[in-house]
């Protein structure tokens, strides 16, 4: 299954396999060296454990592009500024 590294905190990585509704909390050092936040992985899972993880560069790039396009769309769709009253 595919998974994405959502966050790494104090050496602990949280890998989401969102399509499967699953989350794995793992030692970041057990993941490939270039596995950082936002990287997509091809996972082999047995039971509740990840037994192997490989960086999927193509998917990582594709997803990162989509994510920055998403933020761009948010900015474009909204008027400059907040609807709430600015005091200062």
């Amino acid at each position, binding site marked *: 299954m595919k998974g*994405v590294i959502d966050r790494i905190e104090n050496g602990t990585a949280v890998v989401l396999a969102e399509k499967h509704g699953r*989350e*794995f909390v793992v030692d970041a050092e057990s993941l490939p060296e270039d596995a950082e936040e936002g990287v997509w992985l091809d996972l082999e899972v047995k039971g*509740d454990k990840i037994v192997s993880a490989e960086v999927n560069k193509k998917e990582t790039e594709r997803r990162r592009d989509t994510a920055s396009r998403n933020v761009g769309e*948010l900015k474009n769709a909204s008027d400059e500024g907040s609807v709430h009253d600015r005091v200062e």
Partner: protein
Amino acid sequence: MREEQLKRGVFVVALVGLVLVAGCVGPLAGESPDSSDPGTGISEDDNGDDEYYGGGSQGGAPSVSLSDVPGPDDTVYSSGGNSTPEGSESLNVHFIDVGQSDSTLIQGPESNILIDTGDWQGDEAISYLESEGIEEIDLMILTHLDADHIGQADRIIDELGVEEVWMSGQSRSTNTFGRLVDAVLENDVGYYEPRTGDVFSVGDMRIEVLHPDGVPSDTNDGIATRIVFGESEVLFTGDAGESAESDMLQTEMDVESDIYQVGHHGSSTSSMEEFVKSVNPDIAVYSAGEDNQYGHPDDVVINRLNDIGADVYGTPVHGTVVIEATPEEDISVSTERDASLVDSPPTLLPGNTLRRIAAP
């Protein structure tokens, strides 16, 4: 109002005995975090059940209250009472028990603000909002894009009315973030990226933006706000770490607050000593999961907060914590669950009446 306060004062005295008999209601003193080692092996987090902790924060929830607090040593505690009368002119801050995650509802007399939205695998935040009869969120602030902070944002936007959402300008390559963006666009929700120094008013609340001053490079870093309601203040820093905290101290904006949501679920990467001393809260609340794999909260942080005289509450211990604050800075705390202090290590502050009553 004054008369009510007085009546409540009488109630306080009457209930002191009850506190002794009924068990211990109150904040934590140096609670020991679960010391399970987050660094061993690979395991699956099974915290994903749709467990629902809500069910209303009032009506029988144990309650302690402090009135007119000049300093921690003069703190007067009471127990009991329904702290949120209908048509209240108070601010009600609901630290929703969303497990190892964050979601806080700030309910003003006219407007609602939601800061973070629980974990992607749960539904505690949206269930709680529905059970509280919240129909409209005037402002949703997503401190940063971790899936334990933006998790239920898309469903809340789809199912409740959300007028505007604030994000820092970061992006994340998760489906959870993609669904959030879709929900914002499909529902025509306003979008704004607040920056240090911005001040807005939302209903009777004043929102002061303390961070960031640009799109943050650290993924934990994000939007920090101080919400001011009359004389009462509440501070939210999300998962911001040491460097963001020192940035906040460098600005001209005031961080001092009555109520502090303990940064990063009580992790020792946040709540630096200089920072918490400047915030100088009377009440601190952390949101974390029971027996979580991250060791949150860190004992160092809890002790640091105790040392500056703050009463510390935590969602793994107390369940949902609701704090009512009046514009005159009268503050009372209601918790979903009684928290027994019997198992806590004896790091009680000499000035704290409640803890003395509660200790066996």
